[in-house]
């Protein structure tokens, strides 16, 4: 049974399907994180209460472990697939031109946007999750003032710029990845192919703009 599973997990088609499933799950994470972010527009108390509710729940460790596993699978497999792909053409072309009818900027830069997102992710965790801790009181309970950490971080235009660039890269990555995941899993039909590609692009724009709005809002908010 285990050997059978191993045989399948080594197949190119299945590796791509694991990439697809983990990628779609990460898209789900992006949506939930974005909804959480939106609480910053409600106010500091709403934001901090939400952050406290998340971090004080013991189940957060299980959720984080699952999330980390999804991330590591997606990243690890991406590296493995990219290395295999490079090996598949040991001698490069003297001249290679794209047809202009297939590859897009997003599709041909997936490993690069992916790497940029990974670097961003590490810096993001250092800055916020493991960043400066301020405390505040909500209804008499001592909670972490994550709102202050976020707003103070985005007082630097350089931090805002880096965040915006990373989110544009994320949007580009997702615009190909979302549709590509469905193709890898075998969803393809003239009835919904166009729709799926459109939804993929729309989803990427919503995600990118949604995330970009936050640092700009915080920057404009000033230290308030």
């Amino acid at each position, binding site marked *: 049974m285990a050997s*059978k599973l191993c*045989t*399948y997990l*080594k*197949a*190119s*088609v*299945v*590796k*791509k*399907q694991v990439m697809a499933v983990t990628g779609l799950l990460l898209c789900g994470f992006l949506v939930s994180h974005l909804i959480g972010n939106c609480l910053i527009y409600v106010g500091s108390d709403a934001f901090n209460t939400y952050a406290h509710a998340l971090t004080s729940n013991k189940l957060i460790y299980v959720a984080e472990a699952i999330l980390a596993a999804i991330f590591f699978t997606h990243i690890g497999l991406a590296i493995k*697939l990219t290395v*295999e*792909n490079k*090996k*598949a*053409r*040991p*001698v*490069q*072309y*003297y*001249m*290679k*031109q*794209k*047809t*202009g*009818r*297939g*590859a*897009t900027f997003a*599709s*041909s830069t*997936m490993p690069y946007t992916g790497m940029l997102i990974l670097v961003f992710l590490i810096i993001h965790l250092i800055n916020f999750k493991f960043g400066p801790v301020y405390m505040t009181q909500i209804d008499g309970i001592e909670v972490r003032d994550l709102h202050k950490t976020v707003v103070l971080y985005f007082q630097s235009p350089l931090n805002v710029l880096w965040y915006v660039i990373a989110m544009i890269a994320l949007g580009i990555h997702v615009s*190909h990845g979302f*549709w*590509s995941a469905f*193709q*890898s*899993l*075998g*969803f*393809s*039909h*003239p009835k919904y*192919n166009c729709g799926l590609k459109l939804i993929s692009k729309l989803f990427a724009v919503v995600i990118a703009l949604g995330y970009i709005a936050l640092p700009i809002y915080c920057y404009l908010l000033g230290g308030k």
Partner: protein
Amino acid sequence: MSSDNLMTLNLKIWRQQNSKDSGKIQDYVLEGVSPDSSFLEMLDQLNEKLIAEGIDPVSFDHDCREGICGMCSLMINGQAHGPERETTTCQLHMRKFNDGDTVVIEPFRARAFPVLKDLMVDRGAFDEIIAAGGFTNVNTGNAPDANSILIPQSDAELAMDAAACIGCGACVASCKNASAMLFVSAKVSQLALLPQGQVEADQRVQNMVAKMDELGFGNCTNEAECEASCPKGISISNIARMNRDYLSAAVKSKAEPKA
């Protein structure tokens, strides 16, 4: 035909003695090329000139020269089968080029497609994939009654579209990952779509994918450069079909993939 139209071309051609040689790009100037000649006729003209000069002619693959056998190949100015859409190299005409143009001619490149000499490439890997499962078992004897097996028109059309694949390898050559997914999926689909292909369906898709992986082709990143450069316009919807057939076979088939 008036000689006014004749073109002079600067050719940059990949020359490689044998599969062990590292090879290099060699410059040639070819005068008097008719715009009405095909790309392969232009190479014939070059070879006649080279032979007259006592130089080893350029080896290249070709056979029917009618765009149906899948034997001709070539990366022309960085594109598989050249710049024209849904056209094989043999059907590409020199009128697509201008007098004085520089034309870069290279072999199809992939680990699974070793260069034998100059522009000649061993695409036997495709034959190995077909041997791994690209067939159906049929009873010999009398021909079966026509139309005894009912096939929906839409399925027949899709199967015919997939069967248009001539196995030239342009999909592998143009893919940045040298993936053979379009070829394999077309060969899986042409049988998977028909009732006659159902008996071996699960084993076929598993074994052909296993063989493809074993031969060292790359992984598909859904860029669709294969579809765009395919001389027969094979759609990447075949790749999606193969992906779902593989997943379904992996879940329900009793047989494991064997390459």
